[in-house]
């Protein structure tokens, strides 16, 4: 199949915040502020960023847990807004999710077989024998024994519950699975098991993943493409290796330099950012990152940079736009 399985163009999500009962000025939290991305079939798009960057909201938008304030989402080439009840259900079946907390993802009052079967039972009318068969097959797929089906979630460990959550996400043979911090809440020695399982399933079933995590190494490991978000905008997006090894955007550079080393001899050039992440209620003008950027120029406060290609990936940064502003004698800044 040609073309991305899921695509977003100029996606916007604002949460209105009312100030006082009689306030006329309505402020808005610009959680997602004009982003565009594409997820290719069988590939993983990794989304990284710190708190307030909008990656969780993006996941909710993809899962239709929130409605976008603006922009377009396309599934297999078709506009989601244009989808009616039937096609919308089709979308729901094709896009599933695995969340962070394995203890909250499963209804403690339901048996594992009912949990895994729920998407099947809701969307298809199959005889119960067939449903049972599929549940057992899914359990096998995620490496859990058959007898797990009749047990309750509390009888399983965190890693096993996450496997159950994955089995459930796969029940309808989706095309896209949103993985929101799937291993952060698990013990370190178990994370590799789950990450390997996810990769194997991707290869086996041709799944696409939207992988959100704060562990940069895990994201780099799992993703084919990485998008870096800051205050609701994508500041850099491209092939995972390219972005991780040679980031161009100053924020990406700072982020990857802040990643913890995997060996004591690993010395990285440390780029320490000043200040805190500004509130999404009132993001800075121009480039949202400029107050903290070690390479900020005059232009950055005034003009928002566009996401443009540079050295094999897209970056939104004035360092690379090539047009030097000559009307002001700028400090170093310039280009790299």
């Amino acid at each position: 199949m040609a073309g991305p399985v899921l695509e977003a163009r100029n996606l916007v999500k604002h949460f209105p915040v009312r100030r006082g009962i009689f306030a006329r000025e309505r402020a808005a939290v610009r959680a997602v502020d004009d982003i565009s991305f594409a997820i290719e079939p069988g590939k993983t798009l990794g989304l990284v960023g710190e708190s307030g960057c909008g990656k969780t909201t993006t996941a909710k938008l993809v899962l239709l847990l929130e409605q976008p304030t603006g922009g377009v989402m396309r599934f297999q080439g078709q506009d989601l807004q244009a989808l009616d009840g039937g096609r919308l259900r089709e979308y729901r079946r094709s896009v599933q999710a695995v969340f962070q907390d394995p203890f909250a993802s499963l209804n403690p009052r339901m048996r594992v077989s009912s949990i895994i079967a729920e998407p099947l039972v809701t969307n298809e009318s199959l005889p119960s024998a067939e449903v049972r068969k599929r549940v057992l097959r899914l359990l096998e797929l995620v490496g859990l024994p058959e007898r797990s089906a009749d047990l309750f979630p509390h009888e399983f460990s965190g890693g096993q519950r996450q496997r159950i959550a994955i089995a459930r996400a796969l029940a309808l043979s989706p095309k896209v699975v949103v993985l929101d911090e799937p291993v952060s809440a698990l013990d370190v020695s178990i994370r590799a098991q789950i990450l390997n399982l996810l990769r194997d399933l991707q290869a086996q079933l041709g799944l696409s993943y939207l992988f959100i995590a704060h562990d940069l190494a895990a994201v780099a490991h799992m993703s084919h493409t990485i998008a870096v978000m800051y205050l609701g905008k994508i500041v850099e997006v491209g092939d995972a290796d390219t972005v991780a090894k040679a980031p161009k955007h100053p924020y990406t550079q700072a982020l990857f330099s802040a990643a913890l080393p995997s060996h004591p001899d690993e010395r990285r050039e440390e780029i320490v950012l000043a200040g805190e992440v500004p509130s999404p209620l009132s993001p800075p003008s121009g480039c949202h990152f400029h107050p903290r950027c070690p390479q900020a120029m005059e232009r950055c406060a005034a003009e928002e940079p566009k996401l443009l290609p540079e050295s094999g990936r897209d970056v939104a940064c004035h360092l690379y736009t090539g047009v030097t502003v000559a009307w002001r004698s700028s400090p170093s800044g310039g280009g790299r």
Partner: protein
Amino acid sequence: MSGPLLEVRHLSTHYVSARGTRVTRAVDDVSLTLGEGETLGIVGESGSGKTTLAVSLLRLLPPAGRIVSGEIRFEGDDLLRKSNAEMRRIRGKRIAMILQDPMASLNPLFTVGDQVAEPLRVHEGASRGSAWSRALDLLKAVRISAPEMRVREYPHQMSGGMRQRIVGAIAISCEPRLLIADEPTTSLDLTIQAQYLNLLRDLQRAHNLALIFITHNLGIVAKMCDQVAVMYGGRLVESGPIAQIYNAPAHPYTRALLESIPRLADSRKRLTAIDGQPPDPAALPGGCAFHPRCPKVMDRCRVEAPPESMVATSHTSRCWLS
């Protein structure tokens, strides 16, 4: 001062259930040493006993917990022989602790200034005025911007990173010799974490502070620590200088753990996973606690728990293979 700052010898802490029927060996025969100004990383997963170990050092166990044997020699004195009053004088003044959740560590009803000044007033009998001005200095030391303003603010008005710094300021206010940090950066964003760890390192150098990091994150250990102690099932399975542990890990658990973590350097390489899950401390496997998951398990491991053996200088491991 001669001798190490902290010397723990054969420490064992048990939790006893309400009816006295079940005994959980949370910490089992742990020994370690820490010198002045050094940094030790205690690594372990859930159920490994690392937090119990930290809490035992300060004798802050809940009623169900009991230190059943061993010694904790701090500056030469055995802490286990001290009275409650003496321990109170030590906590906060000579040994300080930072916990994971800064919001839980700070009282929402008091200003930041009051809270930073409190240890000074309690331990050193400082007057309100002098404690307040020292609090200001401490806020500057932990790199809080506009400290004159912040000092009058309340915890909820600050970000997570700032709160964790406040907690740090409280901890170092009386110039302790040892700071125990239990997962101090788990709730922080990456860049904030980097700032905070750098701050800790600078403070350590400035005050000749010894640091103990309790963490499951091997990255923090790689960045900050001189020594590492790996805990599993309540026992110390490996300990030694950081270079040794990373370059030549002796215990299969340490080795497997290091191999299972994704690295930025060769990110596409398939991870080597460890089978099974960490044991429940209330139901530890017999013999070596790691044997059900160990790729090199032998018959002996199932039956007998291995003693500590010296693998190289200052490098010990509990494994029948060494």
